[in-house]
């Protein structure tokens, strides 16, 4: 029982950064913009949050900066793909290449002189687990109530996001812009404005996901802190069928894989570490393939926003 509770607690903690970023990318893709820059934005969010915490000690400020950094990179993507009609795949890729490169550079440049300007190996103030009285003592359930603030915030963000997207007027216009921008435009919605807005909001959430990595999940900065999580997020959006509440299952699944990996490594199994580390990537490919094949048969429920990845302009015929 104790083992299950611990595993579940690690799963939720590992899944937190994934869930922030997944919900962020769902907002973005729902508006019709595909942002493959998640890995880069997450990396920059992780770096900037850690750097700010290291120098100021303020966790609140760290989160604000991580959101601003994620949001600015997303704004760049929005400008390129909405205003300049650039290819969204390549634009997103370049955000990732630039973000990872810049984070690696800054990580070796922003540190204290005593450490050769390196941020790696430094410690900064980070988020502690807070046990909720009473609820935190019940077996199994305790896993949910021994988490850090960022994980607790998700208990609100997930249902609110679902409610916003499916039950409010703004959510409806967000979805209509992604499904049929021409009709949305005819109804008086500014397609470009909506797309800019949700791309930036998406980037801010991705930045928060990055911050959770360096300030809570594995406190400290290292150059491969994201380890492809940004790409797994792109897959999680598809698994979730672009629905924020379903995103929880994907994040828990992948968080769980991480937790089991840790557990097995600590226990010293016969399986080589390389194969254990492959698990999340192999599972992503397999699940993605299965989802696509099944999705073809049950059309509708899991399909992507129709206008995803396409530029839109009223002047186009």
């Amino acid at each position, binding site marked *: 029982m104790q083992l299950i509770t611990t595993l579940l607690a690690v799963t939720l903690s590992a899944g937190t950064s994934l869930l922030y970023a997944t919900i962020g990318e769902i907002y973005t893709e729902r508006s019709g913009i595909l942002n493959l820059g998640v890995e880069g934005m997450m990396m920059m969010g992780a770096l900037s949050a850690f750097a700010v915490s290291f120098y100021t000690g303020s966790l609140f400020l760290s989160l604000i900066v991580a959101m601003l950094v994620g949001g600015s990179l997303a704004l760049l993507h929005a*400008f*390129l793909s909405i205003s300049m009609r*650039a290819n969204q795949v390549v634009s997103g890729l370049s955000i990732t290449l*630039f973000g990872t490169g810049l984070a690696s550079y800054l990580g*070796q440049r922003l540190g204290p002189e005593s450490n050769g300007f390196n941020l790696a190996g430094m410690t900064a103030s980070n988020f502690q687990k807070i046990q909720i009285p009473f609820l935190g003592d019940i077996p199994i359930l305790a896993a949910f109530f021994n988490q850090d603030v960022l994980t607790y915030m998700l208990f609100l963000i997930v249902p609110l996001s679902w409610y916003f997207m499916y039950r409010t007027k703004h959510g409806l216009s967000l979805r209509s812009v992604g499904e049929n921008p021409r009709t949305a435009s005819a109804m008086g919605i500014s397609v470009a404005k909506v797309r800019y807005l949700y791309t930036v909001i998406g980037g801010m959430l991705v930045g928060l996901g990055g911050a959770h990595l360096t300030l809570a999940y594995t406190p400290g900065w290292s150059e491969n802190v994201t380890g492809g999580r940004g*790409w797994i997020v792109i897959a999680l959006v598809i698994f979730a069928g672009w629905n924020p509440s379903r995103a929880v299952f994907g994040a828990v699944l992948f968080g769980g894989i991480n937790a089991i990996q840790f557990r097995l490594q600590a226990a010293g199994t016969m399986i080589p570490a390389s194969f254990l580390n492959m698990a999340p990537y192999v599972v992503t490919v397999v699940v993605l393939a299965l989802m696509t094949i099944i999705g*073809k048969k049950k059309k509708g429920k899991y399909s992507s926003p129709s206008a995803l990845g396409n530029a839109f302009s009223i002047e186009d015929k």
Partner: protein
Amino acid sequence: MRIVLEKREARSKTVTVLVPIISFVVSLMLGSIVLGLSGANPLSTYGFMFKGAFGTWIDFTETLVKAIPLLLTGLGVALAFKLRFWNIGAEGQFIWGAIGTSWVMVFWNFLPLPLLLPIGLVMGMVAGAMWAGIPAILKANWGVDETLTTLMLNYVAILFAEYLYYGPWRDPDGFGFPGTKRFPQEGWLPRFAGRAHYGLFLALAIAILLWFLLSKTRWGFEIKMIGKNQKAARCLGVSIEKSIVVTLLISGALAGLAGATEVAGISHRLQKGIDMGYGYTAIIIAWMAQLNPLACILVSILMAGLLVGGDQLQMMVGLPSSMGLVIQGLLLFPLLAGSVFTEYRLKIVRKVEA
């Protein structure tokens, strides 16, 4: 008064050539902001980078050493991108190329020594093609998103290589060094200057061949057709599924060959550090070169220069070598923003018509 984009009647040739050049200059300017903010003098830093990459003949041969794998992976990526197949798995295909070649070099003792190199290189190409074949088949048959599958397989490839050189393939006499036994000398790809090996001429020949195939043959025409308009291509009787798989096998084979020449020409063993990120730089090269194989030659030398110059920075002024990566990352932004002007022009509208 407002500014709108108006579609040009035809793609502007001048703009197509000008945009990458201006982009390069703009990205250097943006890079100087990063340098300035992190407390370095941009001008002297760029001077060091340029001297480090092109200053002396020996420096230039080092730039060529990096240009070889960059050109080969860049060609592979450009070919796939022509189809609008977003192969971002050149890194993994490169690693599999290195694995395939190393397998032949280290374990195929029964081969006559002169055959080691040719068979080794072919095996590298086969391994790279195989790794690209998985996402290609998934995409062609079931429409599985290729950006994700190709990227995920990069991580699987590097972890598998890690397993090999830390595990069963580790040199028993290597004092624990994570790498295979050294290849027999007969299997090495000969060098012509410094560490620069004959893989360069192989890569150049392939670039020219690919340019010819793409611009002068029916196969090339079909690829362009599928990239531009899948429906029209299907109407003309082109088998899109077959084209995707065949083209991606070639794309993967090129990245595989890059990995093969890297181990056969430079490291002479499969070892830690084989994942040098060439497969990601290849994406920038392909796009900078506007997917033109001949332009890839020039761009890959330029990109190699940025990487070598970045390494020199670390040695000479103690700036992180990733500055080269930052500038590379910056390159695509002005390029993407500028590309719109090949098909559109800015127009100032004085009055909005009612």
